[in-house]
């Protein structure tokens, strides 16, 4: 599994500093959370770790690779990403099962198709998350909570070494939230993945993470260890 080291990272968008001088080190298999008010820079930080944005100042080291436009393709398939709930055109002709399967498309590569084993893994994951019944429904036609679960299944299909979760519980019910937490915990225990969680839900953070970074106005203001969780 991979460690993540961030050194003096700053990020500016439209002349406004979004992140300022962020430094942190996360060991392989550790589970950490970013907690803070809206606009604190939590999502931007996850996007930078995922290599969907690049910073001009500071650096991110994943495993032994310094993240850059040149190196990102080598490690992209090792990072699973669950984005914040996003708007989708309800007419979009993409089925939910296609979205789940897409998680492993980067790993299986171009010109190859998911084999029976992958299809079974996708179905089992969807069963566990109680979304197997909507697998043939268009993604745009399902509810916000179901979309969230589909996105989690998609990220886990990637079989990631690092899992980035951006508000994964924002639209799901309490029962579903418990189920998702349980699945991620089991995944973490079995595979030892490194987890980064952005959430406003303290209880979920306490169940899933062993360290919290508190953020405000683009800076890490403090950090706290949580013992006896994972």
């Amino acid at each position: 599994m991979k460690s993540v080291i961030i050194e003096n990272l700053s990020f500016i968008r439209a002349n406004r500093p979004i992140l300022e001088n962020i430094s942190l080190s996360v060991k392989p298999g550790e589970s950490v959370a970013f907690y803070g008010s809206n606009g604190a820079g939590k999502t931007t930080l996850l996007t930078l770790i995922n290599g969907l944005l690049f910073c001009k100042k500071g650096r991110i080291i994943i495993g032994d690779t310094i993240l850059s436009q040149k190196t990102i393709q080598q490690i992209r398939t090792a990072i699973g990403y669950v984005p914040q709930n996003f708007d989708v055109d309800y007419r979009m002709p993409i089925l939910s099962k296609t979205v789940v399967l897409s998680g492993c498309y980067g790993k299986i590569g171009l010109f190859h198709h998911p084999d029976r084993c992958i299809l079974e893994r996708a179905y089992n994951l969807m069963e566990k998350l109680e979304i197997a019944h909507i697998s043939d429904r268009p993604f745009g036609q399902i509810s916000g909570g179901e979309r969230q679960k589909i996105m989690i299944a998609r990220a886990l299909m990637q079989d990631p070494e690092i899992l980035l979760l951006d508000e994964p519980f924002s639209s799901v019910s309490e029962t579903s939230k418990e189920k998702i937490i349980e699945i991620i915990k089991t995944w973490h225990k079995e595979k030892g993945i490194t987890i980064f969680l952005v959430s406003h839900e303290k209880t979920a953070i306490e169940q899933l993470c062993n360290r919290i970074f508190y953020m405000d106005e683009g800076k890490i203001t403090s950090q706290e260890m949580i013992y006896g969780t994972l």
Partner: protein
Amino acid sequence: MELYNFMLYSWVAAILTGFICSFIGVIIVTLGLSFIGVCMSHAAFAGALLGIILHINPLVCSFIFCFVIAGILGPVSDKSEIKTDTSLGIMFSSSLGLAFLFLPMIPGSKSEGLKFLWGNILTISGSDLLLLGIVCVITLGFVIAFFKEIQILIFNRTLALASGIPAKIIYYLVLFLAGATITASIKAVGGLLVFALMINPAAAAYQLTYDMKKMFLFSSIFGILSGCAGLFVAFWLDIPAGAPIALSSLVIFTISTIFSPKRNVYAKPQTRILQ
């Protein structure tokens, strides 16, 4: 024998043009890039006019112009702070400006240039058919080879990238293929009406299914039907084929919309409230 060839070429051109435009049209429509047809067709028209002025094969110049537009469009939308439809608008107005600049520069009669705007399927030659055939094979091969990646590109480009799919390259290839399709079809249906053949059959297929494979199939059938029905009407009424081809595709779209099963299955009011 010559009459037989001319008839045969026209029918083959109608089938190939109908197929290829509607096939690539599925990706264009689902990516929300419908305006790209107008933009590219005018670029192809401007390129053809420049070819005539410089005494170079107009189709070669059309290809170059479309490829330049495709080459600029992708990076401009990616790197600047403007939306793709805005960059398409800028490219469209620039192409139109160039076309208006080149048109008066054609020595003598302008009909040689204007035929690329209106198109004439009855004047299709063997080499034009060969070009259409090559573009058909390349486009079909591209979609078959990258079908799973194309689906995710349509779903969300950022997530496609996050999954490790070379989303940017595939997106740019789609733009290049759209340019190649328009250039190969411009002589048959014209720069103005190629847009209809690209969008209407795909939009009609969109009314019938959420399954991408079925969308490609339905759209291709509708495209070929539009091409053949339009050509039949053109022969029957002795008029240029471009207009009846475009109108046939409109009729198919209207019928699909009226009988769309989506109205009954998914688009119930309570489902929409959830969105």
